[in-house]
C-alpha cells in the first residue's frame, strides 16, 4: 500500500489517515506501507520523517519503505533500515489502463511461477483474487533488477491459457504463440513462429524493449505498457515479419 504525501502538515495527514481508517479498520491493520514523496513540495527533515514514521506505526501501519525521498534524506533513511526506491515517474508512462492491467499480470506471474523457468500453467482463478493489492503492483513496478538474467528459451508452442514470463531478461520462443496465450519479458521478445496471443515486452517499464516476430497476428502487443490491439494493427503488417518498438510513446511497427 502506498501513502502519497502531498504536504508536510503532520496533523492534517493524521486526520486524513484517520478518515481512511474508519472506513475499513481491519483491512489496514498491520498493512505494510510505502511513503511516496514524489508529489511533496514542502521541505522535510529527518525529525519530521521520524515523527511521520511513528505516526504511521501508531495507527498500526508497518512502514517498510519510501519512494522518491529528498536526496539529502536518502542516506539517513536507509541507515534506519528502511527501503528507499527512486521515483516511479519513469515507469508510469504509457497508457494508464493497460499499464495497470499488465502490472496485475506481472504480479500474478511472480506469484504463480518464477522459480522454475518452464511454461507455467495459468492459475488465473487463484492468483486473480490475491494479487490485486496496490502494494504488490507498485512493488512489481519499482523493484530494480540489478543484474540481467539469462535469456529464456521456449521450444514448445505456447498454448491458449498458458503464460510465459521471462523475468529480468529476454524471451525467445521457437514456436507459435496461440491466441489466448500470454508471453511477457522484462526485455525483448522474439517469436520465431506465428504470434497470435498477447506479447508484453518491457513488462517492468523498459521502454527500449522490442518485440520481434516472424508472423504478426497478435491479439495484443505492448512495449512498456503502451499497447496496440489486433483491431488496430495496420493491415499491411498482418502476417508479416516485423519488429515493434516504442518511440515518443507510440508503438512503431517495422517490417524486418
Amino acid at each position, binding site marked *: 500500500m502506498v501513502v502519497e504525501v502531498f504536504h508536510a502538515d503532520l496533523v492534517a495527514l493524521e486526520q486524513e489517515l484517520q478518515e481512511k481508517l474508519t472506513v475499513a479498520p481491519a483491512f489496514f491493520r498491520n498493512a505494510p506501507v510505502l511513503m511516496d514523496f514524489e508529489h511533496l513540495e514542502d521541505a522535510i527533515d529527518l525529525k519530521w520523517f521520524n515523527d511521520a514514521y511513528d505516526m504511521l506505526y501508531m495507527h498500526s501501519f508497518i512502514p517498510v519503505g519510501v519512494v522518491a525521498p529528498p536526496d539529502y534524506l536518502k542516506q539517513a533513511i536507509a541507515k534506519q533500515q528502511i527501503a528507499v526506491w527512486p521515483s516511479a515517474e519513469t515507469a508510469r508512462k504509457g497508457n494508464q489502463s493497460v499499464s495497470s492491467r499488465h502490472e496485475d499480470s506481472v504480479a500474478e506471474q511472480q506469484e504463480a511461477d518464477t522459480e522454475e523457468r518452464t511454461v507455467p500453467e495459468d492459475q488465473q482463478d487463484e492468483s486473480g483474487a490475491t494479487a490485486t493489492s496496490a502494494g504488490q503492483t507498485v512493488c512489481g513496478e519499482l523493484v530494480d533488477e540489478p543484474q540481467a538474467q539469462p535469456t529464456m528459451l521456449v521450444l514448445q508452442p505456447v498454448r491458449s491459457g*498458458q503464460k510465459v514470463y521471462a523475468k529480468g531478461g529476454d524471451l525467445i520462443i521457437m514456436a*507459435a504463440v496461440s491466441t489466448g496465450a500470454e508471453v511477457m519479458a522484462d526485455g525483448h521478445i522474439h517469436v520465431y513462429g506465428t504470434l497470435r496471443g498477447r506479447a508484453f515486452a518491457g513488462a517492468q517499464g523498459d521502454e527500449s524493449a522490442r518485440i520481434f516476430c516472424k508472423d504478426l497476428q497478435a491479439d495484443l502487443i505492448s512495449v512498456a505498457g503502451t499497447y496496440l490491439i489486433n483491431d488496430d494493427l495496420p493491415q499491411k503488417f498482418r502476417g508479416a515479419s516485423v519488429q515493434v518498438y516504442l518511440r515518443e510513446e507510440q508503438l512503431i511497427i517495422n517490417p524486418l
Partner: protein
Amino acid sequence: MAKVIVTTSGKGGVGKTTTSAAVATGLALRGYKTVVIDFDVGLRNLDLIMGCERRVVYDFVNVIRKESNLKQSLIKDKRVSDLYILPASQTRDKDTLDIDGVGRVIEELSEDFDYIVCDSPAGIERGAFMAMYFADEAIVVTNPEVSSVRDSDRILGLLASKTKRAENGQDPVKEHLLLTRYDPLRVEKGEMLSVEDVTEILAIPLLGVIPESKDVLQASNAGCPIILENETDAGQAYDDAVGRLLGEDINHRFIEVEKKGFFNKLRLFRS
C-alpha cells in the same frame, strides 16, 4: 504394460465419445485387448454408444471406492472379443474421482490389457484432468471451427503440463489430432476451416479426418460403434486412423470434394 490413450477436446459435442468407442473397437478388432473407460461421471454416454446400457451393474466409481472389483464391473462387448467397457456412474459427480483411486484402477487394468482408452468429459475440470493425467498418448478431437480449435489448443497446453508424464519429467504425452465432422464442400466454400488451417494452428500430427456423416448419428442411436459400419465413409476413416495410431502409413482420405467424373454422371443418367 498397457498403453493409456485419452480422447479429449475441451469443447463438448465434437465427437469424443464416438471416437473413444470407434478407436477402442478398432484396436480390439486388430487383436489388442482393449478397455474403454467413461470418465464422464454423472453424464455417462459411452455405454449408449457401445450399446451396453442395459448390462451395467457396477461402474467405475464403484471400483474406485472398492465397492466392486474389476471383474464384476467390466462389461464384455458382445460383437468384438477382446473389447471391454468400464462405464461411468450416472448418479455421482466428478468429485468422486480421486487421483489415487483412478491410478489404482488404471494400474490394475494395465496388467491385463494392451490398450486403455480414457473417454474424457468436456471442459478442463476435474473429470477431464483425471482422464488425461495417466495418459501416454492423447487423441485431441477437434471440429473445423474456431472455438473448437481454441479449446483444443488449451487442452494441448494442459497435456504438456498437468499430466503424470509432465510432472515426472518423462517423455511428453504423444499428441494426435483427429479432425471430425469435416465437410470438404463447406471448406471449399470457405465456411469451414480446412485441414491446413487447423494443423497450422495446433501444430501436432494429424491422425485422421472423419467426414461429416449422417451414419454417425444413426450408429450412435443404434448403440453400434461407427467403425463396425465398415461400408460408411466415417467408419473407414476411423479404421484408417486406428491404423495410423498403430504406426501404419495410410494416405488421408475424405479431405477433397469428390469430383463428379464422367462415369459418375453416366451412372446418374442411367439410374
